[in-house]
């Protein structure tokens, strides 16, 4: 008999663990499965901080936080969701502090808050520049406490299919990495918290694990992906590795300069300068680089004027990263940075409780699109989203499970079917190995669907993806035929996810004939077009490719205005 739970959480980053804790505390029997050990999840790599209007550094309010978020989203965020988000965020932060999160403190001993991009007040709570690490640790501490009370965590289980019976999601089918074998785990409700898909791009801040597993699994069960063309490019990722240098560097006063030393942001965002929103800064950098004012395809993040003490106390992790991966000590020299793929605003469409279109299936964190971030996310809002909407989805999934009947009997047949598929993958000995498809996809997405999107390049990218898809479908060779820790197998499956999401992104991107947030078409549609495109892209899988429709943006009190910083 397969393991069965009230609530089954897939993914154990900040959103998944927060959801699991909430469901457990509401009396549900909770199982968590993750392809990594929970503390290896990519939430832990978040650096700069987490936004909540505590007002510890300067006057602030949830309304201000909401307005900044709506404006940052280029008015594509759903305003009711944003109001819930900013209203509930402060208590969620206090909860984390009570659990023991090791946040940085201000002179009064309260949680310190630093300025962040496009924020009207310093509202980013942080732990030096390892905020994500501190959150992952405190959440896993709480998870371990609950494991002693019966919560079960399946580590290094690679989920690759959802079990949907009679229109209701009742479990997942996964590959057991340590022991091999296709395993079924069921739940009366299921929460997807599998994170993003930054690995679509060769220059990305994202971990190797960020391959859009949950998005693709949902897509293949008929669920819509919302606003999937909106990929955020973070303005300060190191050359050439793509490793993230936090926005906190600019929050603490860092400059962006071109090869002449000019703080070019004044020409693009005369008021906010380096602290304009991320889409604006990434576009400005790209313009500078394309105009020949960069250095080796990068511009500089200059911290020299901050001095050694501030760098050592507030930004020690960034300094270590720069020294290790760029060979630069930021006390003495600027760090070469460029825009790199960072965060998917789009994802599986959910309501404000994380519920998807399928009964019993919830989603939270980067895999989901509520939407709080719209066309462009503000720095510090994603960690907060994982906590607040992780908690909400955990609550909703537990409440649903409380009154729900047990899963049906279809699980074993679905598992056997999945097992047949995995065996056929492993049995194939003709064709190419997946890595060149992966590398070509990553490089071409960067070239053709990056910060600026040109029509002819997007069309070309559609063809490239189709060609890669054909090569993938023709049969790829998995060299490792064994059961134990077969990452060759899981990486091959992940590549299929990447191809699925790329197709959806291109289709939605080409159809959106405007520039909004992270989707920028300066050569054919440079302006925002509220008349036609103040709406969500909705992508569904239709046989062998995506099908695009549109949905309404939920507005409450903020009418679209021109967006300047």
């Amino acid at each position, binding site marked *: 008999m397969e393991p069965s739970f009230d609530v089954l959480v897939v993914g154990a980053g900040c959103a998944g663990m927060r959801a699991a804790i909430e469901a457990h505390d509401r009396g549900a029997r909770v199982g968590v499965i993750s392809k990594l050990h929970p503390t*290896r999840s*990519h939430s832990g790599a978040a650096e700069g901080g987490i936004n909540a209007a505590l007002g510890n550094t300067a006057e602030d309010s949830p309304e201000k936080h909401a307005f900044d978020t709506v404006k940052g989203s280029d008015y594509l965020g759903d305003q009711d969701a944003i109001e819930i988000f900013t209203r509930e965020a402060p208590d969620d932060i206090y909860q984390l502090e009570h659990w023991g999160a090791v946040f940085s403190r201000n002179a009064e001993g309260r949680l310190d808050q630093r300025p962040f991009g496009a924020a009207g007040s310093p509202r980013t709570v942080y732990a030096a520049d390892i905020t994500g690490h501190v959150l992952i640790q405190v959440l896993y501490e709480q998870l371990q406490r609950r494991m002693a009370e019966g919560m079960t965590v399946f580590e290094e289980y690679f989920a690759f299919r959802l079990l949907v019976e009679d229109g209701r999601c009742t479990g997942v089918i996964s590959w057991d990495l340590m022991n091999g074998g296709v395993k079924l785990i069921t739940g009366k409700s299921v929460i997807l918290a599998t994170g993003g898909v930054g690995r679509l791009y060769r220059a990305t801040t994202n971990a190797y694990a960020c391959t859009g597993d949950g998005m693709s699994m949902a897509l293949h069960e008929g669920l819509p992906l919302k606003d999937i063309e909106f990929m955020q490019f973070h303005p300060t990722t190191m050359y050439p590795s793509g490793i993230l240098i936090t926005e906190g560097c600019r929050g603490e006063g860092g400059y962006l300069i071109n090869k002449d030393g000019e703080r070019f942001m004044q020409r693009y965002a005369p008021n906010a300068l380096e602290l304009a929103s991320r889409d604006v800064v990434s576009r400005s950098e790209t313009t500078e680089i394309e105009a020949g004012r960069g250095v080796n395809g990068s511009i500089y993040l200059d911290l020299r004027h901050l001095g050694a003490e501030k760098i050592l106390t507030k930004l020690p992790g960034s300094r270590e990263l720069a020294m290790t991966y760029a060979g630069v000590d930021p006390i003495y020299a600027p760090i070469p940075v460029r825009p790199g793929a960072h965060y998917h605003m789009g994802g599986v469409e959910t309501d404000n409780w994380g519920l998807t279109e399928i009964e019993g299936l919830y989603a939270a964190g980067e895999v989901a699109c509520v939407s709080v971030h719209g066309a462009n996310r503000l720095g510090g809002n994603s960690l907060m989203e994982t906590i607040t909407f992780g908690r909400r989805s955990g609550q909703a999934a537990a409440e649903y499970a409380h009154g729900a009947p047990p899963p049906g009997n279809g699980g074993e047949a679905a598992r056997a079917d999945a097992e047949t598929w995995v065996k056929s993958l492993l049995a194939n000995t003709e064709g190419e190995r997946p890595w060149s498809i992966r590398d070509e996809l990553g490089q071409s997405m960067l070239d053709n669907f990056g910060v600026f999107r040109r029509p002819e390049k997007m069309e070309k990218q559609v063809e490239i993806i189709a060609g890669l898809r054909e090569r993938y479908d023709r049969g790829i060779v998995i060299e490792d035929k064994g059961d134990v820790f077969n990452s060759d197998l899981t990486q091959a499956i992940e590549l299929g996810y990447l191809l699925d999401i790329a197709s959806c992104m291109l289709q939605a991107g080409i159809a959106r004939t405007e520039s909004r947030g992270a989707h920028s078409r300066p050569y054919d549609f440079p302006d925002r077009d509220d008349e036609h495109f103040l709406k969500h892209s909705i992508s569904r899988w239709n046989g062998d490719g995506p099908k695009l429709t549109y949905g309404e943006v939920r507005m409450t009190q903020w009418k679209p205005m021109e967006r300047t910083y």
Partner: protein
Amino acid sequence: MQVGLKIWRYDSKTGDRALREYEVDAPEEATLLDCLDLVKDKHDGSLAYRKSCRMMICGSCGMRMDGAAVLACKVRMYDIAKEGRVPVISAMGNLPIIKDLVVDMDPFWEKMRAVDPYLQPRFDQAEERENVISQPRMDVIHKESLCINCGCCVSECNSMEADPDFLGPAALAKGMRFVGDPRDGATIERLEKYSEPHGLWDCTRCYFCNERCPKGVDPRDAIAKLGAEAMKNGIDRDMGAKHAKWFVTSAKTTGWLRETELVPKTQGIVSSIKEMKFAMGLAVKGKVPPPFPPHVAAEVHESRALFDLVKTQGRDGAAGIVQGEKALGRIESHHAASGGRDPYTEADSAPRPYLPSEREETA
């Protein structure tokens, strides 16, 4: 650049073990992890290792290079390749190998869970807002909170090699993370628990954990802090605690370590009597200084003054531990070594930043 690697391959199903050599063409900025990826892509898809963030924060890729634990993503290969060295890559120590470079981390996490790794709040009624705590008070656990659970310290732990039940450096550092947290209310219970057999007093102070930790957690310092906190709270029944206490007493009273008295003071009289034969043997060889009259150091007042000074400064407990400060020390010394450098005026300095509007004004 051409990078050569010798990798210990292992198949837990068959028990086959073999050292295989690979050569890959890697970019100059490549890390060990990048090179393993190239081996897996271009040479052998069955090579098994863990990876995820590739930026020193997820803790997945702990392994050994030439016998010492490293994070593969933190090791730049340029210098090694240029020297023509071909390092040997193997799985971490003290943990069962599953396949190639992948170890079973369950024993690691079992130890972690044994220290109750979660806050046990001191406050009965949670504050409506955050607890107010000064930053210097939180700094006490700064290093311990940097731990990414990679297992490098456990891999290198000599004590754990001798006693697999030893709690070990990672779990004890996690313990200090809570003992040092002013919000935790279980300090005494924790110190009692960590002082049990296989606990904090079983560390042999080899300092390999401090040396090999890729994040500067300095687990040995954390263990020392736990020991000091235990004694401060009167939890000193363990032989290890008595042993340490005798060092202090001995140094304070005579300025020397009185080794002859060390055994009975540590083990107690009854247990020491059993060692009499061994002691007599040592005495015959002239290895036991006579206990009476005690040998008092000529400058014993210095040692006593030092003791008094530490007392008056209130440096008992964790605050009295002089820390290795490996990570911070390295950072600061690197900084000091290049101190006085002007970041703006050297030949290769990047240009001094200016705002476009400033140029317009001057123009």
